[in-house]
């Protein structure tokens, strides 16, 4: 469950987020859409505790991220366009290292099998393709069994095959009851993975979207309508 209440973030005299409120239920998959500079990255930054909000608050499974950031971090897994992996370490060593930081003892081999990388467990991540790194990044994000998965433009720069492999992994996690928050530029991606979403523009929620509704929805039309 993610509860966002009147969240604002100002940089100097630029307002990136302007009083945003959201409620994402447990097990729901939710899309954040919007043009560049709409505030998606800032919102995700705050939710993943990398940024501090100027005002408002965020509850993750009823844990206030400002009061107990470490507790909140244990409940979140983040997959971003940067895989956050060490090129000089093997796939297995990377996962072992992050497992130590989360004080969890996952079955690394089965994690690697889940993302179809068990055959490359002992290879340096530096030799991996981008698609493979991104899959390993999913394994990194779920090794502490978080209830919430934040996907911040995870497929940017991936080719179509890797993207499909990535989608099926996410669908699998979704079916296991994880709450998913996705930011993306691609409407088809949001439709494929999410039930519901909002469009952000200039730091505000401008539209709620039911992504499973049958109405023909073109993201470009929405963005153009924003002016």
């Amino acid at each position, binding site marked *: 469950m993610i509860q966002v209440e009147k969240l604002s973030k100002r940089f100097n005299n630029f307002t990136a987020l302007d009083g945003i409120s959201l409620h994402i239920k447990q097990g729901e998959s939710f899309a954040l859409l919007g043009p560049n500079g709409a505030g998606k990255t800032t919102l995700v*930054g705050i939710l*993943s*505790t*990398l*940024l*501090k909000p100027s005002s408002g608050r965020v509850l993750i499974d009823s844990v206030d991220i400002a009061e107990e*950031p*470490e*507790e909140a*971090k*244990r409940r*979140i897994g*983040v997959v971003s366009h*940067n895989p*956050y*992996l*060490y*090129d*000089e*370490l093997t796939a297995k*060593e990377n996962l072992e*290292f*992050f497992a*130590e*930081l*989360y*004080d969890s003892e996952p079955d690394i081999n089965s994690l690697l099998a889940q993302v179809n990388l068990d055959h490359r467990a002992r290879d*340096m991540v530096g030799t991996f393709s981008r698609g493979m790194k991104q899959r390993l990044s999913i394994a*990194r994000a779920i090794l502490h069994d978080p209830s919430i998965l934040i996907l911040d433009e995870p497929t940017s720069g991936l080719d179509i095959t890797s993207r499909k492999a990535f989608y099926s992994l996410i669908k699998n996690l979704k079916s296991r009851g994880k709450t998913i928050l996705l930011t993306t530029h691609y409407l088809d991606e949001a439709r494929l993975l999410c039930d519901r979403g909002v469009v952000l523009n200039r730091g505000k929620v401008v539209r709620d979207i039911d992504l499973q509704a049958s109405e023909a929805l073109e993201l470009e039309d929405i963005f153009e309508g924003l002016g």
Partner: protein
Amino acid sequence: MNFKHILSVVKKDLRVESRGKETVNFMFLFTFISLLMFNFATDPFSPVLNDVAPGFLWFVFIFAGMLGLSRAFLKEKETGTLQGLSLAPISNDDILYAKIIYNLILMLGIQIIAFPLFIVLFNYNIAGSTLDAFLVLTIGNVGFVVVGSFMSALVMSARSRELVLQIIVLPLLLPVIILIIISLRKVMIDAIPLLSIGEIKLAASYVVIMAVLASLLFDYIMEE
């Protein structure tokens, strides 16, 4: 402070370094070359050599250390993995402590190789205890690593960071540099035992104060 987390990060950094070895190799080569240059610049039979050599030794470490320092946080910043660390439930202070320990291990490695090399090259006859001289250098290196690691995190988001780092670290270390040179001379020339040198205690307290200050202010460096 979570020792397990600190240890994990140190282990990870050492492992990453052991794969590429770029920093260690550069640091060692630099130490070797600069010791040779200093050696070449001085007359081996001059009585002055005895006086200036302890200073040389200490400066060589500082400049070699500069090479290693700038990498500790910088590399993680450049590859974005520092953000990955921030996503994990590890406190900022623990990241700092881990980097300090990692840098210290590098410095000690260089010290173990360069110290005997110095004695051979300069044909130096240490008047006091060799162990004491080694310990004085170690305390100096601890101070250097504490201030240096903190400041290398501070300059992460600056342009031409390697240059700015040196401009910031050297003045802040001025007291340590001065006190260590005095102590080194006392050990290496006047054969005074380590524990009766007041300067080394002062240097150690300076290092402790800087370390406390660093852990108090580190959160401000990491926040965005």
